[in-house]
């Protein structure tokens, strides 16, 4: 067991973890943050994507011990985030989910694309989503929703 201290969704957390424990299992099983999903556990499906120190990362490929002193944000974190609000609204309007398994990570990835200005065209959005697999929707509505959110936020920023 190794002692770690980290920040999760704004709250300070201390725990003892076995080094083999992934960040994903730590979040789901120790912190009850079950919005982070596990598909493949080897980096390919993207379902487990969270933010580590503000940047998207695979929580299945990070050990909880290695997150000592780091800042983690999961899908449960973004209630007051304007980009996430626009994405959620557009995912709803454009029917961008079916089973919802991929959705938390799609939202986190899409938010990062918008903030890094990599959601300017369909091509850019599709490239940016290549690491997030959805087995239900066929992606079309997800891409439409992200493009719509990006456009909305772009216009808002221009008007502000």
């Amino acid at each position, binding site marked *: 067991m*190794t002692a770690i201290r980290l920040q999760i969704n704004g709250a300070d957390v201390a725990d003892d973890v*076995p*080094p*083999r424990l*992934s960040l994903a*299992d730590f979040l789901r099983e120790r912190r009850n943050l079950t919005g982070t999903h596990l598909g493949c*556990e*080897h*980096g390919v499906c*993207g379902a487990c*994507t969270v933010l*580590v120190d503000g*940047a*998207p*990362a*695979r929580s*299945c*490929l*990070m*050990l909880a*011990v*290695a997150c*000592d002193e780091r800042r983690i944000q999961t899908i449960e974190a973004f209630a007051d985030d304007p980009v996430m609000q626009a994405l959620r609204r557009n995912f709803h309007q454009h029917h961008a989910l079916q089973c919802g398994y991929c959705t938390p990570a799609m939202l986190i*990835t899409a938010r*990062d694309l918008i903030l890094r200005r990599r959601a300017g065209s369909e091509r850019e959005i*599709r*490239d*940016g989503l*290549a*690491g*997030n697999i959805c087995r239900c929707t066929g992606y079309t509505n997800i891409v439409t929703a992200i493009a719509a959110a990006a456009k909305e936020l772009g216009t808002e920023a221009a008007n502000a």
Partner: protein
Amino acid sequence: MKAPAVDYVRPKSLAEAVDLLSQHPREARVIAGGQSLVAMMNLRVASPGLLIDISRLPELSLVSDDPNAVGIGACVTHAAIEDGQAADPSRGLMPRVAASLAYRAIRTRGTIGGSLALSDPAAEWPAVLTALDAEVVVCGPGGKRSIGCADFTTGVFETALAADEIIESVRIPKLSQDARWGYLKLCRKAGEFASALAVAVIDRTRGHSRVVLGAANGAPLVLDHTSRLLSNGGPEPRNAVAADLDRAADRHFDEFQRNLHIVAATRAVRQVLQ
């Protein structure tokens, strides 16, 4: 699956990390971004007894910028290179390569040193850094040594790195102002490992011209005929590439792979000559 049980330490200095590694030569493994190692542990194809976390060592995150070369610390991430946070010796080649390597959520943690140490035959950095004539600076119990990239990767997941050595940085000569490069990665989906990968670099001021194939069933494959053709500004590169592949019979390319390599190398060279 889940990773097997393992111990974990986070040394405070490179010297301490090298020390730990040489004390536990069999069971210890350094972990940088973990983007290959943790996946391998989850798949149970790797089961180290001790992980030595080097990802936060300040010595390994340094970027140095001399008149002739840029040094990039082993633990600099693909994303930092993509975003131009590290000085770029390559006139745009390295940021371009980084941007199409894996997915953003992997690039934010995966490191250039980890890529070299693993030397997956389909990985970008071993091929690209060979084309740029870079050197790998490694640190072991006896001190530092420098290995040319062309000699660093020796085969499929095989390198010249000794069991008790850690990669400290990569030293990359700066391309001159009139240098040109071409780059092509063929894969079926953005961010996937390459099915074929070609880099062409010509720097007349420095008298350097090199065409290299990645994903070549072994270490990066330097195409000698094609490199010469590039420096002479010769005609259509296709025949030269085919001649180079004929000489690499030990790579056992099937017809499909051979064609992919020819297309990748020909297009990379054309990008330079255009």
